[in-house]
């Protein structure tokens, strides 16, 4: 527990800030990140979250710190991936992916289009199963149990591992029925119980106040950002342990995006979140750990600050500084 302390301190600091402070802080990164002489890396260091690596550079050896972190995330790992390969027919799209995804943290997957990050995130809850001729080898272990093991029930797995998609996909039903869908599948019939969970889920997804007076209106009438938050509420309603987000904000405007990011920030206290994003600023803002994928391979995986501030691989550096991709 003590070994986790430094990380907790630096990362939960903004979360402990008062509501006013945080909302004021959140829109900030965007203008700050716009290259202003110092460029992306320079701007990043003005963010509060970047304080630790800067301090590291002056203080203790960053190397020792890194290995220490590696150990603690290993011990607190929620999803453990070993030598994971994935094929679409004859085409191998993921090559020997191995990584540990820590519990109750946000892990971002970044990389150029077609690098396999979406395939990877969809492998975690076996969404790729519905694609004909898709095939996986290696293991993805969640809480000690292999997702691809013979005795894994896919339906049960997906209830524990929620997913939010790039394109918001509310069902053409009422807002209420959308959130109730997963609950009803699980056999919840009690109206009072349903009402309660639905209110809680919508509140957690920061949508309750906008929709509480029209719960029985069609979900299709909501704006894009609201629809995406509804999809998050829908996923939260069944109380998953892990939340997978495949570019959840890529189709949204900046205001809706910042709302989703804020939400991710709040959710990570209770959920293990894996997020695919094309937006590197977003990865830098919301995640604790970042994995950089390229051409189906995991190139580098480390603390988000390390990936953006002191990448070890040349390819990672080129990508995060915008030299390609």
């Amino acid at each position, binding site marked *: 527990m003590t070994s986790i302390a430094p990380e907790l301190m630096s990362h939960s600091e903004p979360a402990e800030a008062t509501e006013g402070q945080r909302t004021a802080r959140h829109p900030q990164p965007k203008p700050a990140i716009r290259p202003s002489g110092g460029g992306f890396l320079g701007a990043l260091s003005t963010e509060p979250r970047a304080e630790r690596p800067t301090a590291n550079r002056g203080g203790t050896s960053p190397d020792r710190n890194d290995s220490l972190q590696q150990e603690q995330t290993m011990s607190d790992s929620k999803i453990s991936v070993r030598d994971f390969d994935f094929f679409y027919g004859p085409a191998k799209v993921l090559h020997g992916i191995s990584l540990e995804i820590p519990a109750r943290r946000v892990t971002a997957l970044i990389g150029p289009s077609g690098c396999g990050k979406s395939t990877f995130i969809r492998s975690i*809850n076996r*969404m790729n199963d*519905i694609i*004909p001729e898709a095939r996986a080898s290696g293991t993805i272990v969640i809480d000690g149990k292999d997702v691809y093991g013979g005795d894994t029930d896919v*339906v*049960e797995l*997906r*209830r524990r591992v*929620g*997913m939010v*998609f790039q*394109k918001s*996909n*509310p*069902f*053409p*039903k009422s807002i209420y029925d959308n959130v109730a*869908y*997963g609950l009803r*599948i*699980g056999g919840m019939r009690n109206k009072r119980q349903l009402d309660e969970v639905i209110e809680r889920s919508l509140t957690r997804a920061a949508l309750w106040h906008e929709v509480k007076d029209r719960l029985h209106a069609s979900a*299709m009438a909501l704006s894009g950002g609201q629809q995406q938050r509804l*999809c998050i509420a*829908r*996923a939260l309603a*069944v109380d998953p342990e892990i939340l997978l987000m495949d570019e959840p904000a890529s189709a949204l405007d900046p205001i809706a995006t910042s709302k989703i990011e804020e939400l991710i920030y709040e959710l990570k206290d209770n959920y293990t979140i894996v997020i695919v994003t094309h937006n590197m600023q977003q990865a830098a803002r919301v995640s604790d750990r970042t994995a950089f994928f390229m051409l189906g391979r995991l190139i580098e995986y480390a603390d988000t600050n390390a990936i953006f501030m002191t990448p070890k691989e040349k390819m990672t550096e080129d990508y995060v500084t915008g030299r390609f991709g």
Partner: protein
Amino acid sequence: MTANLRRRKLFSRIFEVLCGLTVVVALIPLAMILFYVIKEGAGALNLDFFTKMPKPVGESGGGMANAIVGTLILIGIAALVGVPIGCLCGIHLAEYPGRKFSSIVRFAADVLNGVPSIVIGIFAYGLVVLPVKRFSAIAGGVALGLLMIPIVVRTTEELIRLVPGGLREGALALGATRSRAVFGVIVPAALPGILTGILVALARVAGETAPLLFTALSNRFWSTSLTQPIASLTVQVYTYAQSPYDDWHRQAWAGAFLLVMMILTLSIAARLAVRRLERMNRS
């Protein structure tokens, strides 16, 4: 250069005109049918036509009440046969599009769609009429139902494919089983369209005569029994149009008018429903 351009513009113009002309030619038969049916039929239509039974040969007046009810009964039986088979089959094709079995089913549906309706009638005759040695409403309904199947299969398949794939993934990601996702989310989303497809198929078979000739036969008398021969608008029109009596010709026109109006209404309703579905999916 300018001469070349002028020539190209001229050719373009000529083809535009030709295309327009072919459209007009294609529409002429439709316009003429509608014109004659309305001109001859609308005038012959009166309350008696809907409420009275056919009069004996030689007497004027009377109506087609038995045939109107008969057609409705036949369509009802056809729907009972064709809709469940057609819809489930279409859902299967849409959900498992890549399977070998699916492509065989799809091909079979297309072949069935091309089978002349008289052949379907003979098949229903062998299947339902011969074993009990009696023409019946059931036999006619089965023949029409068989005709409906391929139409319902293909429209159901197409409309389910119109439903965004994200809905399927969304349902599965919440822990729904495949069938739960299909029947709880995807089919409801496509339902207006599927209903439309069923209406179109019903309209299509409501206008069939040939498969009824040796299945439902016809009936001069009032009958709603499913095991007895039953009258239908189409067969009645066929019989009356062949007859030498002016009054029967008049009634045949009225029957034709009623059929055309029924089919037109169903088709327009179908169109509107599809448009609504497409709008919903785009947003």
